């Protein structure tokens, strides 16, 4: 799967660089609070649950479920409408926005709570987006 040109390109900051380094290397890296053990997203070097800076980066499973979405019918640079803008709920708890690939972009095919798995998709040499696809065997 390759991306069409024209998508908005993320620019990492010092607080998010590890995440984007991770996707480039084929890893979905989350962070977890040292006090509560709870995972969180988006990346930041402290826990949003307790304010502690005692946090660690860990590799997530890459598995999740389809939490919600819209199917956009208007043209946007980098996309062929209709396409779904989805939110996946990761197995570890946090949610993230994404696109669902290898799947028809229809309400019939995009069923809430369907199992998904990460599909790392290269944008350029530095940026790889964590897209998701229906989990194998589902």
């Amino acid at each position, binding site marked *: 799967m390759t991306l069409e040109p024209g998508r908005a390109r993320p620019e990492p*900051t010092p607080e998010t660089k590890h995440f984007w380094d991770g996707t480039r290397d084929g890893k979905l890296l989350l962070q977890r609070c040292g006090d509560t053990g709870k995972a969180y997203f988006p990346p930041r070097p402290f826990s949003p649950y307790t304010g502690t800076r005692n946090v660690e980066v860990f590799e997530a499973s890459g598995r999740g479920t389809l939490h919600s*979405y819209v*199917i956009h019918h208007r043209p946007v640079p980098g*996309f062929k409408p209709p396409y779904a*803008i989805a939110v996946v709920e990761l197995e570890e708890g946090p*949610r993230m*926005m994404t696109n669902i690939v290898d799947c028809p972009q229809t309400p019939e095919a995009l069923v809430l709570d369907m199992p998904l798995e990460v599909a790392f998709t290269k944008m350029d040499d530095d940026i790889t987006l964590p897209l998701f696809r229906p989990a194998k065997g589902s």
Partner: protein
Amino acid sequence: MTIKPGEIAIVGAAETTKLGAIPDMAQIMLHADAALNAMADAGLKPSDIDGVACVGPMMPQQIAHYLGITPRWVDGTGVGGCSFMLHVRHAAAAIHAGYAKTILITHGESGKSRVNATPRPPEPQSLNGQFEAPFGPMGPPTLFPIPVLRYMKKYGVTHEQMAMVAVVQREWAAKNPRAAFKDPITVADVLNSKMIAYPFRLLQCCLVTDGGGALILTSSDRAKDFPTKPCYILGSGESVETTMVSQMEDFTSSRAFRVAGPEAFRMAGIKHSDVDHLMIYDAFAHLPMYGLEDLGFVGRGEAKDFIWEGNTRPGAKLPLNTNGGGLSYTHTGMYGMFALQESVRQVRGTAPAQVPDVTISVAHGVGGMFSASGTVVLSNQRP
């Protein structure tokens, strides 16, 4: 010393002279047009105003200078379309504290004509720019409805029930000569309108218009000296959650609504049964449902039946969005000012679709894509 219900009043309120397409006015002039109309309503000159609030991209220093006002209090709180509810709350606190006596709150937006309008794309280094923008959202229609399928699944809301929100609001709009759309529509019309971002179709999305509005607040002890019927502020609430809709705590409820709404009710010392008229910022069709539930007017999952059964219609027990709302009246991009204007008209008894015997009105706003909320309780009676 805490502010008491009714201590501060709105003594001036007006919208821009025109609404809809206003290509002959730049954005700053829309603010000024509304402000001049509100000053005329209150019988005031710019030199009588000593406090100014507005929301970005317009800055209070631009508005003050343009209108010839020398403020000793300013507020540029910008949390999206409900910023005005927060301005009312902050202005009331400022008047109570003695920081200003007479405060002007303005809104103007060239949402349709884009005359001197400022585009606001997310910066690629912002969290929205990194973790939402790359996945193809383009403006509010693709972001605000992101949670709605989850809400519909949890409570078994049908597409017909979600369409009914737009149908009922059009019934109110039909009574309002200034509403952009007044022709009756059916559930079938809504479900046959152009698909924008599934599950939402055109008639479930707000308008895009030019326009504005302004409010003038002062202490209630001075309010009797003004030509208008005072509109007392009984209570208010505010909160924010996240600018990233994907990071909302719960897709079936707004945390910001659940903080702002109950706080306003508590401050005002009112119960739900005291509310005669309600405005819930309806940028999209799901917001009145979330608002009714998060503010506690109905139980969880009950909004779909409450609206379907006609309880928010003209003549029914809880008149909701009586100007026609953002779906049928007007929506410049920041609708909160128009919700407040309609609440003021209803408690003054001057609304085009006037509800009989309104004593208490609640205006509830949302900002960003569920990122902020503000609630204001107004009354024509000082407790």
